[in-house]
């Protein structure tokens, strides 16, 4: 047994009084694509953001390649916060891609991708840009290196955002609905980049409403509903009939929505 890339243990997340994750246990296997699906508001983003330490768990622990993220079990069982340097070190194994791209508008594509190399890792500008250029090539945007985000299409921006995360050579990539704010004709280019990343053996966790992508590329599907993990398993178990009644319901409404958009 190898250590899972991510393991989530008893994760509870409350925003004030409201509990949105009610005790999640989940393991993300190494080198695979895990997709999280579920209705809106089920807590997919919150779970993913906890894995990136953008949200702190109210209770429970998260391990990245066996190392505790943010909090470690303390002497009395109560989690203790780890020192900032330790948190940063564990966190650096993770790359995150957002629905809204979140590129920095005052930097070119190359600037966005090379920023952390220069500022955080003290890599010389020329070398940082060389390395950034390699990543931009990987997402097919080498010739757009000098463009500002406002001069790029949504699909191109998202590919730059992927390159930005890849530049730090993370072991795990998290994607929160990476194609949801893109026009349909632009989703393909982003999904293709993600497919080739998966083919290279990157460990990926993808929150997506692209059921087709989840079914074809995903090696593990996790289905969330109302803050609970209903089940997780390989796509053939999940999507083939007979299906879990809750998933059936979800897919029905999902497909209905798609049909409604077509009509």
């Amino acid at each position, binding site marked *: 047994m190898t250590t899972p890339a991510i393991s989530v243990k008893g994760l509870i997340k409350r925003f004030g009084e409201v509990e949105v994750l009610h005790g999640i246990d989940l393991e993300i296997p190494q080198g695979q694509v895990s997709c999280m699906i579920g209705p809106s508001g089920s807590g997919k983003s919150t779970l993913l953001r906890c894995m990136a330490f*953008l949200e702190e768990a109210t209770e429970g622990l998260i391990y990245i390649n066996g190392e505790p993220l943010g909090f470690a079990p303390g002497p009395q069982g109560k989690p203790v916060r780890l020192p900032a340097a330790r948190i940063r070190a564990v966190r650096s194994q993770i790359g995150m891609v957002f629905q809204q791209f*979140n590129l920095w508008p*005052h930097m070119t594509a190359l600037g966005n991708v090379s920023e952390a190399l220069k500022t955080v890792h003290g890599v010389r500008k020329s070398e940082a840009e060389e390395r950034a250029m390699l990543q931009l090539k990987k997402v097919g945007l080498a010739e757009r290196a000098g463009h500002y985000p406002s001069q790029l299409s949504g699909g191109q921006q998202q590919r730059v955002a992927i390159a930005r995360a890849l530049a730090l050579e993370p072991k795990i990539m998290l994607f929160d609905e990476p194609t949801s704010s893109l026009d349909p004709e632009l989703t393909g280019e982003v999904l293709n980049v993600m497919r080739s990343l998966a083919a290279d053996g990157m460990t990926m966790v993808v929150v997506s409403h692209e059921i087709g992508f989840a079914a074809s590329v995903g090696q593990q599907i996790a289905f969330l509903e109302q803050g609970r993990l209903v089940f997780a398993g390989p796509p053939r178990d999940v999507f083939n009939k007979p299906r879990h009644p809750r998933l059936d319901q979800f897919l029905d409404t999902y497909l209905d929505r798609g049909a409604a958009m077509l009509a």
Partner: protein
Amino acid sequence: MNFDTNLIVSIMPELARAFGVTLLTWGFGVIGAVILGFMVAVGRRYGGAWLNYPLWLCVEVIRGTPFLIQLFLLYYGGPFVGISLDPIPAGLLGLTVYGAAYFSEIFRAGFEAVPPGHVEAAECVGLNRPQIIRRIMIPEMTMLVLPASVNMAIILLKETAVLSIITVPELTLVISAIGSQQYAFVESLFLLALFYWGLVELSGRLGRFMEVRLSKYRFVTT
């Protein structure tokens, strides 16, 4: 009434000195106010409640009282609490603190306008807080706070005239003195207005020029 151009020529050297004092108090006052205002905005944002609340109170008091009275209190009331300052340092300090209250509000709004996702993206690639402020927040908010900041700088320029009440030898003091000595009120006030207006016009233009230069950084709408 005759407009006496000879008079104007004869008082030129004195005017130039006064003009210099106005420019210097204004320039250093704005720089000081921007720096202090920025520190206040950062303190209020990241310092927790125990820093936010007192700073909020200071800002509200300063914004809620006339500059004239603050300056009076500082210059004439200061010695009673052991702060005895010469006119120019007192004027500079007063202008800095007064301007800082307004600049801090401008910057606070600027911080709030930076999309949280841009900050999260920076956290995710490992930037720490000072790096995020320096590399992401300041550049992103510059474009947003520029118009209000230029406005504030212009207001501070006009407020330098108030420094005359604590005998800072700036334009307003010197020109009114000349006016009363030479019985040439209209000429001197006309000149004074011209000076201020010229400066305001100039700084407004500078501000717009910078806005144009920075406009390529405008936010993507997604």
